[in-house]
């Protein structure tokens, strides 16, 4: 199928509670923004616990930071940022009604998300062999053992919940890709892609906070 010209697609009418399709699109993206506001506060509780830990036991947190796998963390940052780029392109492609490009970009985004999860899993495996998993096989020596354990507790909680968000995002994007392939979207109707994009960028932004907190801050000291 040629991708050079936008393919005219029928625009589905709005759901019964809306007066116009525009109103429906605005409501959908506004709803996602409000949801993301709740997400900020959701991660906020854990970040507050992390801040508390870091200000109460700075030496222990610094030592814990040296145990993190900075190479994997950095590569993952790159992977996730790239996926945000492909997602942004996908939304543009949707607005232009380019079905094939849209499908491919969505698949690329989902694959990058899977790559992130794979690397994360490899990193978790490393932490397992280093005996850094609290509650399961944690075993460290030295004066800051408890702090390191708390650090890794929060690390697994934060990255774990972030990972769940990534997984949900991959699912959403896969559904969008399947729908795009069937031609469900057009230049006149692309709200679901746009809203999914908002979600994906948010998940990316959370990681942009987590990366320095987990991998960089502990290494800045001696």
């Amino acid at each position, binding site marked *: 199928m040629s991708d050079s010209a936008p393919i005219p697609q029928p625009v589905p009418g709005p*759901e*019964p*509670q*809306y*007066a116009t399709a525009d*109103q429906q699109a*605005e*409501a959908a993206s*506004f*709803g996602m923004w*409000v*949801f993301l*506001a*709740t*997400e900020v*506060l*959701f*991660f*906020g*509780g*854990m970040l*507050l*616990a992390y801040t*508390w830990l870091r200000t*109460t036991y700075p030496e222990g947190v610094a030592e814990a930071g040296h145990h993190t796998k900075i190479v994997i963390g950095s590569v993952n940052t790159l992977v996730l940022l790239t996926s945000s780029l492909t997602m942004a392109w996908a939304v543009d492609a949707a607005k232009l009604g380019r079905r094939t490009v849209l499908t491919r970009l969505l698949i690329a985004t989902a694959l990058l998300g899977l790559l992130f999860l794979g690397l994360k899993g490899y990193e978790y495996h490393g932490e397992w062999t280093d005996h850094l998993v*609290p*509650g*399961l096989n944690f075993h460290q020596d030295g004066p800051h053992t*408890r*702090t390191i*354990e*708390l650090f890794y*507790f*929060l690390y697994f*909680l934060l990255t774990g919940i972030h990972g769940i968000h990534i997984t949900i995002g991959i699912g959403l994007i896969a559904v969008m890709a399947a729908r795009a392939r069937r031609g469900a979207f057009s230049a006149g109707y692309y709200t679901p892609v746009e809203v999914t994009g908002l979600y994906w960028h948010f998940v990316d932004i959370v990681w942009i906070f987590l990366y320095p907190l987990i991998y960089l801050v502990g290494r800045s000291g001696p």
Partner: protein
Amino acid sequence: MMSATVTGKPEEPIVATKNYLTEEGITLRSWLLTRDHKRIAILYTLSLTFFFFVGGAAATLIRLNLVTPSGIFTPDIYNRLFTLHGIVMVWFFLIPSIPNTMGNFLIPLMIGAKDLAFPRLNLLSWYLYVGAGLLALFAIVIGGVDTGWTFYTPFSSLYSNGYVVLALAAVFAVGFSSILTGLNFIVTTHRMRAPGMTWYRLPVFVWSNYATSIIMVLATPVLAITLLLVAVERLLRVGIFDPALGGDPLLFQHLFWFYSHPAVYIMILPGFGVISEIVPCFARKPLFGYKFVVWSSIAISVIGFFVWAHHMFVAGISLYAGLVFSLLSYVIAVPSAIKVFNWTATLHKGWISFDAPMLYALGFIGLFTIGGLTGLFVANLAFDVHVTDSYFVVAHFHYIMVGGMVSAYFGGLHYWWPKVTGRLYPEWWARIAALLIFFGFNLTFFPQFILGYLGMERRYYAYPPEFQAWNIFSSAGASVLAVGYALPFFYLGWSLFRGKRAGANPWAATGLEWQTPSPPPTHNFDRTPTVTRPPYQYRPEPEPQDV
């Protein structure tokens, strides 16, 4: 074209086959899979009533136990009872009460919309609520959770039995229900208003629910993550809050009250909205200082986030933190007082008729004022050290939550009952119930101020014999209150089948919701209304025309 006219339209004949109750069919399936906000509101009302009576039964047993100084039940049973009462009443009645029932039913009607922005999300929210409620009941009754509704660590994370995790999961899930409802209301209020329905033409009820939704959306996620941290700490034995494991229980209290103090305003703000609808209607006067009432709601929802540590004055926070939070807690009394002054000014020289909704509203104003003024007492750092964890605090928050919120809930229930069901209730019985509730409430809770001031601790199953007289007063009041709360169950149920037809606008009220038939059709309005006037354009008018 319809508009928010000063008086209701002349009565139209009721067409019994053409409203939201009948249009989609009356099968169980049509109810359980409905996306109509009005039907979902009915589902909420039924399930909330169930939880209200469960929580009320627990309260009755608590009061029964406290009739004698040595108690009737074992300490263990008593602990489970007040935990059941607290968890059910706070999480499964007070927080969802007005937003999920009246808010769900009325917000689209009041702004001239066909439905909420996300009807499927709305239904999901109800399923989360019911599932979570049943899970919580299971955990508390079968598992015997005894942490109190606050789940204070390290007790909840270390000592209490294993069903705590289930109870935490239930509260976590009902939190999501609350977030989804708040999200739906915010988007609906922003995007679904009818032509001409500007922000300053919104009824205060809509504004109140909007302010409530902001708190729901911003505070509940913090609660969710806090409960998750407790659950994970219990399961993996890693210390965040548990001092034995290197954690800090104060951190739990900070996180918990960062949600749970704003949650107090989730419980009371919608009540303000209901009262602001009832008072102008039965005083036949425009609401005095509309913009002040509106913006004081928003102010409460913002300042509510800055007062949480007044729950922790004796928990070990620094003196300076205590001073700051004491001062901030005084500040939040200002917007609440603004509202009371505005309602009073609305009543001034009004043409007041003492119908049942108005009796509840007047009761609300009195009881909320007592609750609010004693709130100033406990916001005072020095006084709070004296009464912390005593019955004074119990009485204070029951004056707000029960005297305030539950009165508003019953007031709203009576006020909009004709709109929801198309039937009128027996007015005499409704007035008797309102008076019984007011009398019973004061008899129950006023003695508790005295008990608390004299030093009776809360949450103990036994007490020194010199406190017995006041406790007997309180328990006697509880039985009057129980009769008062049970009465509407019967006469409202009776009115469903035998009540007089209400007509579209039995109170001659001005809101948009009264401009459509009672009960409303599935999509609320036959034609989208256009709004041309501000709300509450009441004129003195002794005879409601449709009755």
